[in-house]
């Protein structure tokens, strides 16, 4: 995926927001009306005050007029502010949903290399928090900045209209409070960084100690752990105090500046009022402006950081949404297949500079078994990736019943393959729905039938709600072996002509392993099978053994042939399976 620069992101964002342009315009209109009406109120109050000049000098008709205006203005403000809030909500939540859906849709279509090459947490945070931050930051930030600027401009305009010289005092001095705020924030940032570092250190220590509580206890390490913790805790306390205190200085110090401005405006206003240049009501209007004038500045400076953050988030999210899709251009229909698989001169590598599979030729007749053997981490799964077209070959062709797998729709290809992997993944859903993943219309009888064939029925029926039991956290309540039996049952329900199986390693106990083995054997009958094999019996009985090392197929042939060859396979066989 290509990273975009700021300008590209902005134009891309605009494109994304286009369907909402009507709503956005409406929101802006509401904002203009709300702000102008809000600014009108201090003026109306000032005029009203002037109507109440002194004993016996009350201009009732003027007062009523002003109060009437106020009432209208209040009503209009209320209506449009409410409308603006609703519209903004609508835009924000719809945009967030649309972006999330688009990103998720792309996730279903992007090549697996994109998913494998990325931390899962990264995509998760793009779809969940980046979408939120973008919508909140950009749209809310935008309205806030817009109303903020409007408020400032409006305030300056009205203040100058009343008294240019007092307006000048306010305009010139207000930036002072911003400078102070910035100064404090800059200094407290240093302490926040220190606090974060101390916190991180303490957290990882606590995690370590709690995770390894058995080691701690069996070594009577408790007192020493407490001593280490104390030292870290003291450092954190010190850093935390500085950070908390310094950051809490922003409000009091900006308030001081604003209060001083207020005092100056008060004096200047009063003096001018004595000179008869302005009225008492105008003094109150301008005082109330000077109180509210500073607020949008603080908001806008916050908005700018939020804005940049939002654009960064949008960039990450849009990068995902604009990522290329898997190529899926079916030219042929496959129909019923017998399960003949051919690799013709196949070459493949994950990265250009590290060639892996080179010129692999392999013919598997229908019903034959292929055992993929080799050291852990040697790249046995690469063959699976290519067969399922999770990754595309760089050169050569893979044929199923004589048809290039690239000429078939992925859906059709996949429906001809059954796959049971060692990483037993189950959905957070009921047992029943997990088993019927391949065939959503399966009847209860069919599901039980498949579970029985996979030796899974006996433990499933003992679960709290049997087939309706909800599996949480990927079925963490089940043992690893039981999960694998579930995965087998899932594939059993709709057995395709070609199977890809991954034998479990030692983490499963012997009894369960035997059950799995027997289920595997049942599945393999009459089907072309690729097995990532660990068990000697599987390997020995295979028609073809592929020995994979460092990602490459280094040997190919049956058991007897490879033993005679006395190469890698023979060595592995002797070291792992023969009694010394």
């Amino acid at each position, binding site marked *: 995926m290509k990273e975009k620069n700021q300008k590209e992101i902005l134009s891309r964002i605009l494109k994304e927001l286009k369907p909402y342009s009507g709503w956005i315009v409406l929101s802006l209109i509401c904002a203009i009306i709300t702000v102008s009406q809000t600014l009108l109120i201090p003026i109306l109050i000032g005029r*009203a*005050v002037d109507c109440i000049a002194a004993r016996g000098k009350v201009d009732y008709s003027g007062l009523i007029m002003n109060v009437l205006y106020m009432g209208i203005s209040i009503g209009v403000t209320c209506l449009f502010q409410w409308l603006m809030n609703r519209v903004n909500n609508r835009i924000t939540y719809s945009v967030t949903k649309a972006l999330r859906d688009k990103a998720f849709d792309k996730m279903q279509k992007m090549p*697996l290399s994109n*998913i494998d090459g990325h931390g899962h947490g990264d995509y998760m945070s793009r779809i*969940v928090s980046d979408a939120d931050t973008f919508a909140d930051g950009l749209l809310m930030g935008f309205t806030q900045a817009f109303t903020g600027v409007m408020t400032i401009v409006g305030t300056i305009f009205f203040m100058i209209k009343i008294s240019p010289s007092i307006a000048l005092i306010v305009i010139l001095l207000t930036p002072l409070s911003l400078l102070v705020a910035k100064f404090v924030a800059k200094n407290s940032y240093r302490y926040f960084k220190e606090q974060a570092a101390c916190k991180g250190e303490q957290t990882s220590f606590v995690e370590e100690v709690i995770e390894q*509580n058995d080691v701690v206890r069996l070594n009577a390490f408790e007192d020493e752990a407490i001593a280490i913790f104390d030292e870290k805790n003291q450092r954190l306390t010190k850093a935390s105090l500085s950070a908390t205190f310094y950051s*809490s200085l922003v409000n009091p110090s900006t308030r001081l500046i604003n209060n001083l401005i207020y005092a100056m405006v008060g004096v200047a206003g*009063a003096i001018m009022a004595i000179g008869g240049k302005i009225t008492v009501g105008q003094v109150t209007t301008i005082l109330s402006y000077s109180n509210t004038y500073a607020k949008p500045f603080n908001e806008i400076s916050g908005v700018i950081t939020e804005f940049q953050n939002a654009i960064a988030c949008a960039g990450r999210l849009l990068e995902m949404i604009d990522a290329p899709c898997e190529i899926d251009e079916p030219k042929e229909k496959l129909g019923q297949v017998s399960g003949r698989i051919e690799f013709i001169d196949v070459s493949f590598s994950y990265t250009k500079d590290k060639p892996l599979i080179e010129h692999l030729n392999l013919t598997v007749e229908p019903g034959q078994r292929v055992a993929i053997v080799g050291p852990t981490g040697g790249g046995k799964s690469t063959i699976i990736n290519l067969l399922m077209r999770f990754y595309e070959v760089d050169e050569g062709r893979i044929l199923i019943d004589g048809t290039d797998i690239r000429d078939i729709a992925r859906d059709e290809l996949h429906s001809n393959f059954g796959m049971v992997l060692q990483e037993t993944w189950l959905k*957070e859903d009921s047992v029943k729905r997990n088993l019927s993943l391949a065939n959503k219309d399966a009847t209860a009888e069919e599901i039980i039938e498949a579970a029985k064939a996979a030796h899974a029925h006996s433990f499933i029926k003992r679960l709290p709600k049997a087939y309706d039991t909800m599996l949480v956290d990927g079925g963490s309540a089940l043992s690893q072996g039981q999960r694998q039996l579930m995965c087998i049952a899932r594939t059993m329900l709709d057995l395709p002509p070609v199977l890809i199986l991954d034998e479990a390693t030692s983490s499963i106990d012997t009894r369960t392993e035997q059950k799995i083995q027997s289920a595997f054997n049942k599945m393999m009958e009459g089907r072309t099978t690729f097995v990532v094999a660990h068990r000697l019996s599987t390997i020995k009985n295979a028609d073809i053994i592929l020995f994979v090392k460092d990602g490459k197929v280094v040997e190919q042939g049956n058991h007897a042939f490879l033993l005679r060859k006395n190469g890698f396979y023979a060595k592995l066989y002797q070291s792992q399976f023969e009694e010394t």
Partner: protein
Amino acid sequence: MKFVARYLKKYKAQAILAPLLKMLEATFELLVPLVMANIIDRGIHNQDFAYIVKMSGVLVLLAVVGLGVSITAQYFSAKVAVNCSADIRRDMFVKIMSLSTGQQDKVGTDVLTTRITSDINQIQNTVNMVLRLFLRSPFIVLGATIMAFIVNPKCAIVFLIVVPVLSLIVYLVMKYTLPRYKQIQKSLEGVMKAVSENLEGVRVLRAFNCQDSEKDIFFGKTKDLADMQTTTGSVAALLNPVTYVVVNLGIVGLLLFSSKQVDAGTMLTGEVVAIVNYMSQILVELIKLANLIVLLMKAFPSAGRVEEIMNMANDERVHGKNANDADNFDIVFENVSFQYQDASEPAIENISFSIPEGSVFGIIGGTGSGKSTLLHLFYHDYDATEGKITLGGQNINEFEDSHISNIYGVVPQKATLFAGKVRENLSMKSHMDTSDETMREALRMACAYDFVMEKEGGLDAKVERNGRNFSGGQRQRLTIARGLMGDPRVIILDDSASALDLVTEAKLYKNLLGMKHKPTIIIVSQRASSVKKADQILCMEDGHVVGLGNHETLLKTCPTYEEIYYCQYPREGGSE
């Protein structure tokens, strides 16, 4: 929350002073409109320049003193919040350290970690905010009302209507939205889970062609979320406009009321301005108070969760009086059964065997056969539900935990290390010989000497978090070396050679058997090859002993053992 108050006591002076000072600052703020009123009514009205300048001096003084007071208050509240939570954090850590295995397992390690970190952070923030705002905001609302009464009691009646109405509106909106925000959060977590599940199961989902149905499910989830947000948002959207209306109508009311009084001469214009100002102040503070209440609502569960840990019983086990120093280290299990607290069936049942000091004892069985439970009972992590376990003839209950940890050298199943240095990992037991030579010897015995010495610093080589800068096999050998430190009388290897190749494993066992002080060696494994040479092998299945004897005897008498063995060493002919 009560227990937080207990911690506040230690900082009583500051905890009381901070809000009081905030109230003082608020008082200064409340004085400003009054000063302004005087400027208008006396300064402007009497054209008294000197008075205006004097009063503006008062305004400046109020601002400056206000700053001083407020900074002091901020400092006090930061200090109280930070120190208080540091104390809670420490006590909680001490508490965690004192919990028995059973108690820790009951809570779970993840839960303990989040409670000592994020929950306590939440408490810290809340204490800080409460000290700063909780008294200040209501004080200003109340103070503004009182000041209004001082200025003009008749007009102030408007306050008695506006303040309750505003409070009611804020309350109603919060009552509606707060629980819904919680639901929204939950729904968002559901969306997150769906993404994570899809990423993890991407191969399976694609293999089963489930992309479209997954999309439908996901779109449904995001729709539910957006709908919930919109409904909640439409109520939250009312808060600002409606409160705005109430306050400004209040101002309209004040203007109308006061006009009559000014006309009658019972009120001055400046006083009208002051009283209008007081009305405007109320709204801001009520909103602040509402936000604070939201914060408090979040903090309550956090405090409750922390308190729950603090109030746990440390230990559910029986402890007798101290055992004497044993003169032998024979281990005997007599008809021992054990059942976990919430389990419906015993994890192990009626187990008997005896391990003479200096012998080699193997324990074999599949996952779930009860091996780990048995080991827990060896070190008295739990009390046996039935039967008796003795160490050197004395009941295991009579030993102190630290005493037991000196007798045993345990190498746990999971090979984990602490971040730090190799040296620190080897010298965890505090009262033992930790000279370089002892450590080197332990490393040699564990076949770990060579690779440690190849690392930069040797014994002082860096160990990263979880020991990830060492390979699995190296980590395992380091934990074995750790288990051998201090010449323990009983060495327990809990499936600890699983990542070692056969040659290294053989060498390790040879080293262990050659140890001068002849410790008892207990080997737990799923592999028959690891226990084959033991003096006695205990074969377990489903929590029961299905065989006890040496390799040859078990092959003949114990079908389970036979099965495990031939699974790894196929009989000639290679059939199953």
